[in-house]
């Protein structure tokens, strides 16, 4: 591989303005596929969720999934788009073995939703409006696994395995208008847009939009134009950039690479590029010497989709509060800073925190656990917060045990550890590990007496008025009770026994 020259990010931005276009594919979470009744659950054995239609068998015909159309309309409305009064599917013709019919049923010049925008908030609170050109419905292809090649790519493979379970899964492709004027913040805008879109999709309940599972996939199109110029430069299309961080890195890398090519007097080739997670670079894929001719034409096997206006308005009424608005409201309710809120978002902790609050936990407690102990653990394990083996309800239960005085901070921590270790619900862990705060005054009294007896010198100091020395005795009691005592109560008892006012 040739080493790619890069210009420093700052230098690149000093000479050029970036123009971005983001194309995001979202797999809808419908129970059945876009054009047939096959199941969509992930993880099924290869080719077990197929039928004549999604295998493209001769004679088979598609029927549109009404839930998918509804999801598309809701997404369109949430993106402030106009909803087509009448639109058709179109066939996108090209040959590829994982495409059963060798055409993809998609939409071409009649998307179901068009002309919208999404306001995204950057880390410092600035709001940037991203124009939405269109959102259209289409079907996913099957999945090829290339065997025998070094890279998992088709080049060098001895054979390929095809799984058509994914073929026909409903997709919504959301295409932005060219994003201009973001300047040096372009990569941040890209990330914030994809993050906001993901939140929106989740809030709509139309998909879990888990990027690591391919439920949401992003292509980053980028070009540079000399500062002050009006005409866009030639773009590169970086495909399948599948995490928020990668979206930002890919945009940044392409800015630096384009600048190097342009500075060197070269020309940008319009091509697709592959993004590499390991070093954040991109490499050339297929060169688009001439625009591929997909020979689109209206799909004759499907009747046009004509969303009833009253129904569209009814759906508008079901839209959730926009994620950005909701976040700002919660931030104010919780009384935390932009920065703290951003940390919550970055950690993917918003939903778990809200779920714990819904389960009865005080907001600050829920935030404390999810952003503290649990965030640290997720980070260590390299998983998303939501993937930890603890539920928001369990966290809420721990908060309740602390509030009623059954657990102190340290014991609560151990309880959570137990839940994460698969030892069961918090109550069960407390029981099995014997973690309850020792509140039996008799047992505690004995421990205090023993501590005083064993540390007469310190006891004398306290009696002499050195109240601060009580800490040492508290420590001794806590040690004796293996941390299960309420430290504040222990201190009270010690001072009481020694006849000193606290």
């Amino acid at each position: 591989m040739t080493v790619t020259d890069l210009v420093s990010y700052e230098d690149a931005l000093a000479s050029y303005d970036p123009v971005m276009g983001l194309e995001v594919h979202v797999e809808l979470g419908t129970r059945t596929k876009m054009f047939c009744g096959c199941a969509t659950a992930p993880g099924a054995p290869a080719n077990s969720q197929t039928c004549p239609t999604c295998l493209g068998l001769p004679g088979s015909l598609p029927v549109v999934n009404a839930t998918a159309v509804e999801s598309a309309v809701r997404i369109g409305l949430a993106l402030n788009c106009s909803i087509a009064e009448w639109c058709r599917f179109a066939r996108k013709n090209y040959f590829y073995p994982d495409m059963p019919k060798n055409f993809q049923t998609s939409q071409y010049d009649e998307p179901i939703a068009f002309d919208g925008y999404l306001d995204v908030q950057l880390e410092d609170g600035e709001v940037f409006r991203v124009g939405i050109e269109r959102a259209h419905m289409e079907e996913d292809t099957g999945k090829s696994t290339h065997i025998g090649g070094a890279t998992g790519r088709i080049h060098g493979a001895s054979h390929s395995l095809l799984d058509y379970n994914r073929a026909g899964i409903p997709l919504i492709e959301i295409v932005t208008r060219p994003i201009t004027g973001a300047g040096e913040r372009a990569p941040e805008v890209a990330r914030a847009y994809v993050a906001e879109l993901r939140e929106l999709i989740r809030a709509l309940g139309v998909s879990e939009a888990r990027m690591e599972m391919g439920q949401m996939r992003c292509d980053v199109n980028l070009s540079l134009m000399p500062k002050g110029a009006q005409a866009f430069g030639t773009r590169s299309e970086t495909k399948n950039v599948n995490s928020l961080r990668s979206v930002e890195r890919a945009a940044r890398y392409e800015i630096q690479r384009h600048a190097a090519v342009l500075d060197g007097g070269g020309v940008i080739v319009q091509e697709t590029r592959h993004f590499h997670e390991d070093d954040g670079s991109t490499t050339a894929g297929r060169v688009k010497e001439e625009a591929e001719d997909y020979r689109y034409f209206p799909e004759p096997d499907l009747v046009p989709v004509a969303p009833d206006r009253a129904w569209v308005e009814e759906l508008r009424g079901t839209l959730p509060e926009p994620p950005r608005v909701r976040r700002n409201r919660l931030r104010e309710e919780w009384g935390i800073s932009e920065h703290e809120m951003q940390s919550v978002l970055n950690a993917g902790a918003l939903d778990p925190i809200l779920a714990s609050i819904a389960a009865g936990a005080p907001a600050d407690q829920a935030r404390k656990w999810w952003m503290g102990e649990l965030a640290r653990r997720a980070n260590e394990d390299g998983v998303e917060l939501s993937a930890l083996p603890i539920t928001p309800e369990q966290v809420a239960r721990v908060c309740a045990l602390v509030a009623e005085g059954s657990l102190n901070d340290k014991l609560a921590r151990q309880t959570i550890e137990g839940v994460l270790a698969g030892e069961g619900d918090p109550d069960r862990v407390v029981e099995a590990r014997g973690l309850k705060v020792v509140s039996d005054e008799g047992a505690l009294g004995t421990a205090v007496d023993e501590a005083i007896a064993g540390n007469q010198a310190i006891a004398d100091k306290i009696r002499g008025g050195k109240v601060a020395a009580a800490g040492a005795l508290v420590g001794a009691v806590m040690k004796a009770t293996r941390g299960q005592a309420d430290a504040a109560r222990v201190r009270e008892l010690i001072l009481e026994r020694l006849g000193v006012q606290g």
Partner: protein
Amino acid sequence: MTDLTRLTAAQTAERVAGGEVTAVEVAEAHLARIAAVDEKVHAYLHVDREGALAAARAVDARRAAGEPLGPLAGVPLALKDIFTTEGVPTTVGSRILEGWLPPYDATLTKRLKDAGVVILGKTNMDEFAMGSSTENSAYGPTGNPWDLTRIPGGSGGGSAAALASFQAPLAIGTDTGGSIRQPAAVTGTVGVKPTYGGVSRYGMVAFSSSLDQGGPCARTVLDAALLHEAIAGHDPLDSTSIDAPVPAVVEAARHGDVRGLRVGVVTEFSGEGYQDGVMRRFTESVELLRELGAEIVEISCPSFTKALAAYYLIAPSECSSNLARFDAMRYGLRVGDDGTRSAEDVTALTREAGFGAEVKRRVMLGTYALSSGYYDAYYGSAQKVRTLIARDFQRAFESVDVLVSPTTPTTAFPIGERADDPMAMYLADLCTIPSNLAGNAAMSLPCGLAPEDGLPVGLQIIAPAMADDRLYRVGAAVEAAFHTRWGHPLLEEAPVL
């Protein structure tokens, strides 16, 4: 003893229901007839002897158990090899699907089975229904029972020839540009293209999705109506299927009547290229309609002259996309997969070997017509012509109830005569194509023999969409009058095979 193969479907069903004959006896008589004559005719690509007898036995068992039988229970049928049949070969007349055993039944196949119809086998056809002579079948041509050296029409030549040679009283065809009506015309049988969306396309291998329509083929108008009713009706598996009651076609076929009916004669369907004998029989038919009480009106549909051109852009465009799935990956033929070649190469080699010349010609035409830069000029213009044709029909049906024309400009031509002249072949569908483009209903029924060659001539009746019953009302009246005039059905005059 009655020759069971000479009965109509209605007669057969009546006798099976009345216990005069068993469904198995009827099936065996037809299987014997097939064994005796099909070597000469080649109407069938595949005879499903076991399946047919099992279906017949099931009908007999139901009768024995006192269960009610449908109006076609126990009647044998020849199924065009374009409808999928679970576990029974379905080739569409192409090498590319040789050996494929579909894992599912077409909706039409299912409905036939549910009706107790006994499917004898799958009939020959032009490859992917592309042709007007059945010469484009990868499995050899079919002979016209009136003269085995002539074509039986196409693409459904096998179905029409099976009827005309008494190898089945009923058959199924598909009509994209005339593939039911033109074979019916040249074999002296009855064929109906129902309103587009009237019969489910689910499980019918697609040629041109917006034009393809399955329909009934029979020897009488009533039989066609009985079959029409059995296969028609809404199917949730076909989005383009019409969700409305099926027109009362059987009722109409039982009460043929044209009194007071306004019949339009399309002036564009005459002139150069129309055989004298065909026009003579057609003129007689119009006279007959007048005698029977119809009012005859001359109607001009100027856009019809552009129908053939529009058709040969739309049909190839859709077929270029529909046939893309035959890539050797999942089913059917696979050529050149020796472990060294890429999937792309194997696909190319398979399509090269598996498709015939006419299929390739149309795939190439369609690919070109849909190409960026040409789309508007070709596909786009063709769609505009389609709209104009629909308007011509609409205007015509404001002043008449049905339109009539010859079904096809000439009688059956000799096998091989037009094989190397696609344009000449395409002209066979001149009169039938407008109805496909407009999606309305049309029928062809026998109206006599051309004096110069003694071959059958077809009369085409066209009705507005969802007025399929009009075809049968008019058809039944014309058929009855002709039978009275001739003293017998036309097929009685066909040579004995």
